[in-house]
């Protein structure tokens, strides 16, 4: 059973997690073709993939970079590194 190295709680078996899939960032203001590519296309090929992992017992999300060929967790990614600003929502109308 694969171990996922949580930065705070130490290694935990994969059975405690739900897979959140590839980290992706929506292109703001993209044309339809670019938007469709974002919605559907995925990295697909083997290599380093940044992914979301949800730890059920603590209800916390984690981000890792993983080698999807060797199934090795390379590094934990602090969420601040990937955050992006929501387009400014107009104040409550």
């Amino acid at each position, binding site marked *: 059973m694969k171990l996922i190295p949580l930065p705070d709680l130490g290694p935990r078996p994969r059975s405690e997690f739900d*897979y959140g899939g*590839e980290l992706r960032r929506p292109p703001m203001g993209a044309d339809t073709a670019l938007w469709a590519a974002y919605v559907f296309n995925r990295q*697909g*090929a083997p290599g380093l993939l940044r992914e979301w992992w949800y730890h059920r017992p603590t209800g916390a999300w984690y981000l890792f970079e993983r080698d999807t060929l060797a199934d090795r967790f390379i590094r934990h990614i602090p969420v601040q590194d990937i955050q992006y600003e929501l387009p400014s929502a107009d104040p409550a109308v």
Partner: protein
Amino acid sequence: MPWRLLKFALNPNHSEPRFFPPETPLKERYDMVIIGGGGHGLACAYYLAREHGVTNVAVLEQGYLGGGNTGRNTTIVRSNYLTPEGVQFYDASLKLFEDLAEDFDLNIFYSNRGHYTLAHTDSAMRTMRWRAEVNKHFGIDSEVVDRSHIAANVPDMDLDCGGDAPVLGALWHAPGAVARHDAVAWGYGRGAYQRGVEIHQKTRVTGIKVDDGKVRGVSTSRGDIACDKVISMVAGSSPRITSMVGLETPIEIYPLQACVTEPVKPFLDTIIVSGSLHAYVSQSSRGELVMGASVDPNVLHSTRSSFDFVEELADKMLDLFPFTGRLRVMRQWAGMSDITPDFAPIMGKTPIEGFYLDAGWGTWGFKATPISGKTMAWTAVNDRNHELIEPFRLERFADFVQVGERGAASVGH
């Protein structure tokens, strides 16, 4: 005893003709290169030669023939899909399967067993009804049946599943069958080889040359080849090949595991699939129970096995067949499923001229082997998508038009 076996006895030093060619060097140029020596690749070569007279073809396989998903799948053949385009495509494949043994003059053990998709909830029963009605509309023998029908055909199955999520009914698909998966690849391989197609094993494609949007050739671990048409039929390795031509696709690779028990005397004839338990089982002609479930929960490019897979599967199998507790799992393995967002393949032409894609086969690739070979051959020869595979074109995603198989999202096998 069939006369062929008598012939063996009568002249002991008769040697059977080779199925596949001995290793020969690669030619400079071929009309077409097929990447992938699995069922789909060999079928495509077979139909190119047999139906279009195109024989200056090289099939390039990085490992051994049928060593990819062809040799690792559930061996189930069925056409009880959900969408009109899916149902017609797989039914055409099933009909080709029925004649393969004679076409090849090779026993592929195509065994019509009947296929149950068990429903344990009302919503699952509704999905079965939906599939049954679409199937019947296209003349396919599928029907929703109740517990008594299942009990009559599979008397030893515990329909109450150990008292948890009992079976309410099932989709019964009489034409459902199993086949010896290796033999299908070998039959197509021999048929292509006999018609002059070159088959090269241990030949890994390392690059595809494209200039101004046209395919020019491929580079391999055993040298370069010039050609104008390349057909990628590599399933679990598809993203590696498509990235060689700079083509983005929605495909993600998830391991699909399976296992077999030691061979025992026949006791299970039909194929059993449970949607909500995500498990399937059938008994091979050798007597092994071939069992599996849905794909692994996360992306991984590896055929490694996991212990929790066989633990969970054993637990579910004992719900359905409590008496199999003493059967021993002999071996477990995995294939690499190329999954698409709408659980339908990606086939046909691509933006790169001369580069054709046969991918996105998830857990439903084996049953499509004949029809994918046939339609991809037609498509490559005519440089136009065969009508049966037009709904599976890559551009559908750019148009936000997904195939409806995802409608009934419960994983089928």
